[in-house]
């Protein structure tokens, strides 16, 4: 075979802060606001809407999973249409309409072809203002969620993550599982679902992003058509602030599986924290940067101890964590956890190298454009920017916010955020080699 040496790598352009999107603020005649990226190159329209204070953290304490179950039922019949008719209209017209509940928010996604938008917006309006909650779909969706909960118990990743959240946020609504528990899902009544819709969906807690083949003027009318019927005042956010994590330690959930799955992390920082961009760079170097991260280098590339090891910042409205995951065969899980702790310590004590800092910054600046790969993902970005109050010029400013991060900044924030002794670890499996400092909380190992 020809063994042609590569003499040069092609010159590389780092994409700057100029984006091919122009964001327009649209306010409807009735006063509903949305951000729009108008794009007539393809006859599709994507709308993303989010209601604040309508996620699982706002569920009644005795009914975790209420928002999630409602999400499963809003497209199962509304207004004059029963479930079958509603679903058939969506499918026959290729209208994508989905609802989802997270911890803080309730999300709505609508995707339609431009020439089917009359039906699409009408179905969205009906689903938000006149959902039916007929007996058959309520029974069916309840069964579907119970079945999902049973399947989650088979998934070590989900078991670890749920147990980790339950422990870390104990006593706070974030400890509740978004999908609820079998008991709560069985206890939810139709009257609960109706009350949820009445109280959780209002115009004051609504954020909307739209992308595609629609003019600002037409969008204004659609916004009134869909959202005008909702109460002007949405719910107050009554979720309390979460500011302190429990002490560090390891929790082991014994399961007969060959590979231990661990979730680990500690107190993080919120999206509006002044150190957010510094922490983003730090996380990228530590474990957020995929194949380029320190954790991947130490745990996977050098030692073959895991297929996936990562960290991520997880900011929520009322609390934040930095968390990560790893999966290693039972016999070596202790080694993976030790390496992760070492890297936690090394970042805190030494900070990044200049090369790591530069690489992380160019990645974080350049890769942002990759999020513009479809209309729904751009619409989601428009919503995220509004939810976090970043300003309509955020896309133009983001590169400088990242670019201004210095090595000293990262060192300072690493000292603030990373404490290897505070790491809270939940392991699912039959791990071996947990050292003394990793002994399970409150008792014997394994």
């Amino acid at each position, binding site marked *: *075979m*020809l*063994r*042609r*040496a*590569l003499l040069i*790598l*092609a*010159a*590389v*352009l*780092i*994409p700057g802060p100029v984006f*091919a999107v122009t964001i327009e603020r649209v306010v409807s005649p009735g006063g509903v606001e949305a951000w729009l990226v108008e794009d007539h*190159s*393809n006859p*599709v329209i994507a709308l993303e809407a989010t209601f604040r204070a309508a996620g699982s953290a706002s569920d009644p304490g005795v009914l975790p999973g209420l928002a999630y179950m409602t999400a499963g039922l809003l497209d199962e019949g509304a207004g004059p249409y029963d479930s079958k008719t509603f*679903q*058939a209209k969506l*499918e*026959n017209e290729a209208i*994508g309409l989905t609802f989802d509940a997270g911890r803080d928010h309730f999300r709505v996604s609508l995707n339609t072809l431009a020439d089917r938008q009359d039906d699409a917006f009408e179905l969205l309006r009906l689903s938000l203002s006149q959902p039916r909650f007929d007996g058959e779909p309520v*029974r*069916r969706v309840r069964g*579907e969620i*119970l*079945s999902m909960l*049973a*399947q989650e*118990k*088979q998934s070590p990743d989900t078991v670890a993550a749920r*147990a980790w959240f*339950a*422990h870390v946020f*104990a006593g706070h609504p974030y400890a509740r599982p978004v999908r609820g528990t*079998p*008991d709560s899902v*069985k206890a939810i009544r139709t009257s609960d679902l109706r009350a949820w819709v009445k109280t959780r969906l209002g115009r004051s807690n609504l954020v909307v992003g739209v992308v595609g083949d629609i003019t600002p003027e037409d969008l204004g009318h659609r916004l009134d058509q869909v959202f005008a019927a909702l109460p002007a005042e949405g719910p107050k956010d009554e979720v309390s602030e979460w500011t302190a994590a429990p002490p560090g330690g390891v*929790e*082991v*959930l014994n399961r*007969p*599986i060959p590979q231990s799955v661990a979730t680990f992390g500690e107190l993080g920082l919120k999206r509006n924290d002044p150190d957010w961009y510094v922490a983003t760079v730090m996380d990228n170097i530590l474990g957020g940067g*995929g*194949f380029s991260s320190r954790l991947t280098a130490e745990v996977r*590339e*050098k030692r*073959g*101890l895991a*297929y*996936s090891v990562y960290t991520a910042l997880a900011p929520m409205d009322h609390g934040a964590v930095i968390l990560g995951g790893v*999966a290693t*065969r039972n016999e070596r899980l202790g080694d993976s956890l030790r390496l992760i702790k070492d890297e936690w310590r090394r970042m805190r004590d030494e900070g990044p190298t200049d090369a790591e800092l530069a690489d992380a910054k160019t990645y974080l600046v350049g*890769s942002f*454009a*990759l999020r513009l*790969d479809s209309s729904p993902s751009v619409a989601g970005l428009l919503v995220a920017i509004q939810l976090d109050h970043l300003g309509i010029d955020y896309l133009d400013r983001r590169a400088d916010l990242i670019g201004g991060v210095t090595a000293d900044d990262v060192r300072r924030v690493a000292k603030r955020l990373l404490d290897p002794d505070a790491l809270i670890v939940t392991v699912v499996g039959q791990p071996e080699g947990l050292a003394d400092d990793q002994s*399970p909380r*409150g*008792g014997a190992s394994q």
Partner: protein
Amino acid sequence: MRRLMVLGLYLGLAFPAQARMFDPKVFTLDNGLQVVVVENHRAPIAEVMVWYKVGAADETPGKSGLAHLLEHMMFKGTPTIAPGEFSKIIARSGGRDNAFTSSDYTAYYQDVASANIEQAFTMEADRMHNLVFDEKNFVTERAVVMEERRSRTDNNPNALLHEAMGAAMFLNHPYHRPVIGWRDEIAQLSRDDALDFYHRWYAPNNAVLVVEGDVDPARVLELAKTHFGPIPKADTPVRARPQEPGPIAAREVTLKDGRVQQPALVRQWLAPSLRSGGPEQADALEVLAEILGGGSSGRLYRALVVEKGLAASLYVGYDPASWDADTLTLSAVPRPGVALAKLRAGVEAELARLEKNGVTATEVAEAKNRLTAGLAYERDSLHAGAHRLGEALTTGETVEQVESWPERIAAVTPDAVNQIAKTVLDDRRSVTGTLLPLPGAAGSAPPMALPAFGQEIR
């Protein structure tokens, strides 16, 4: 990461009947490399993919997992790119990269700023013929793949059932091997195995370069000639795999596992692929799968999930992209409190009804409409065209066949659907898989008795 692709349902796409799918520009270099370009100018980004026409079904018996392990090793260096540097170089310029392997293909991709495609071309061309790696890196990466297998398969009873069903379905064809490989065989793969496989199969005439995004086809061709053009052709093997004998026996696979909390039922039938059976059969099968399981309107979903309340969820899928034989898959999970046997009886009653009465013209018309109504969404994504075309060209389909898909679906007749249903939904072609808890094990506790997680700390 270094993903293993498990193909889902070939997404139903759609368009007005005359529309083309992706309208690609197609070239072939003198050394045989196919170049496919899909323009999409909505954002200044592009996806670069190199697809090789080799996958797990091309491995030597006893060396399962080799195609996938080689995929991992492709990131372990050339004389000019140090081990692990490939992904870091892409990341440094704001890009992301990864790869995936199936039974029929191995694909590598970079999502980058469109101004940076040349960098991706340079490095992809380099590792197409300059791969080198040492024993230590090989052994470490093999351990990574073992962990990957534990994550994907050994820790997951559903995945173990599917693996066992694949082995039961294909008596003679190498599709009976899991793409990730059998555990003991992965452990025995050697560096020489991987390098031999690489030299045998990786060559421009056995690959397809696909670029989708904000690019100019003429410029892509020029860059492809510059970077891939000098790589010489090689004598890659003809893909002639052992074929399935005529199926004569329905098979049952039962997996009882103490970890199971949610029993499941899966049935697969041996079916023709687009290449092996031709477009007419494949198109009719796609319409059949849509009639049976499409969304909330499919007849099995309506009967078993909605009307009889036997299933909590149900899926019917058929992906025509396969070099040799293919499968039609039905899977269902019982609603809480429903015995698996009762669900199975319900499924079989519906299949018997289909056998007796066939499908109606209305069902066919509605299914065809659902399949093709949303085709414009495919052009909305930066990835759909590149993936569809890369997969097609590595599984024996032509670009023209990809492009004519909406017209062909529109032409499917009720007779064709009934004919293919009769042929494929034959018990002798089937494997039925059941996933059950182990009697007496913790997992056989009623699925509702979920202990509070916080109480399991010890």
